[in-house]
């Protein structure tokens, strides 16, 4: 789940980062917005019911609806008792390449 500030809400972190990037030579960046990412493993009968629960979690706790909105993405279809889910999650977020 991505929790981000609603459009039009000032983002002091985004603004500061946007000012810092040109100092490093990244001078083609604009509209930087900072949000939060949550990774949740949800035990549910199917993706639809998992999604419903996660929307509830966002509304009640993970996002502050006064200033934030959320977007949900199912990362990997996990069937009950599928012991491989952890490995598949890692595949979605590969480790950074060695330098």
């Amino acid at each position: 789940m991505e929790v981000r500030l609603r459009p039009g809400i000032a983002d002091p972190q985004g603004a500061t980062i946007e000012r810092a990037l040109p100092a490093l030579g990244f001078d083609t960046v604009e509209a930087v917005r900072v949000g939060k990412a949550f990774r949740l493993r949800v035990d549910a009968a199917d993706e639809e019911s998992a999604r419903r629960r996660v929307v509830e979690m966002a509304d009640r706790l993970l996002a502050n609806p006064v200033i934030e909105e959320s977007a949900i993405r199912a990362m990997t279809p996990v069937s009950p008792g599928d012991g491989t889910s952890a490995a598949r999650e890692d595949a979605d977020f590969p480790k950074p390449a060695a330098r």
Partner: protein
Amino acid sequence: MTARIGVVVFPGSNCEHDVVKAIGLVAPGNAQGELVWHGARTLAGYDAVVLPGGFAYGDYLRPGAIARFSPVMEAVAKYAADGGPVVGICNGFQVLTEAGLLPGALQKNRGLRFLCTTVDVEVGTTRSALTGALEPGTRLRLPINHFEGNYTADAATIARLRDEDRVVLRYTNNPNGSLDDIAGVCNEEGNVVGLMPHPERACDAMTGSTDGTGLVRSLVQVAAHGLGQPVTP
């Protein structure tokens, strides 16, 4: 009779003793502050309630986001709905907005600095539980101590706060980016108040300012006599 003011202690609160001390300094014999653990399910017997500053639950997720689900918060909501005076200071203000007892939200400061300084504020409405003993426009010098004090709400909410005379304090020199220079607001009835500055730290000349005494005295008078009763300035 001595008014009893409940001061709620969340895991991570750190200004509760300052609030109790300030109440004793400002209104010796007339009011006393009593610590209330956040697990309490009733606030019966208290004449006012304060949610003090600090870092409840380590400010994890967002300041106040976890604290608002503490058992005591259901009692606070009921107490507030029944007209009881509730004041949230700093982290307590953040808890009240997260709980939906006050509008808006407190975002990271503009400039992304934790601010620990003293600021000037001007009293707005005097019908709130915290400003009854003061005159509108009174300037006060009060300490602030926060990272998330940047008051944010949609334009309609800001307009409504203005139209309904619900801005309790305004910064004269906005330190954190708060919309409309808002340092404190109240609900429609005026019994629920939230503010970022710390009046309890400005009640003893030894700490640099006694400008917080008028605010604390207002709360003590509301606790003793109820909201909307004549108060002694």
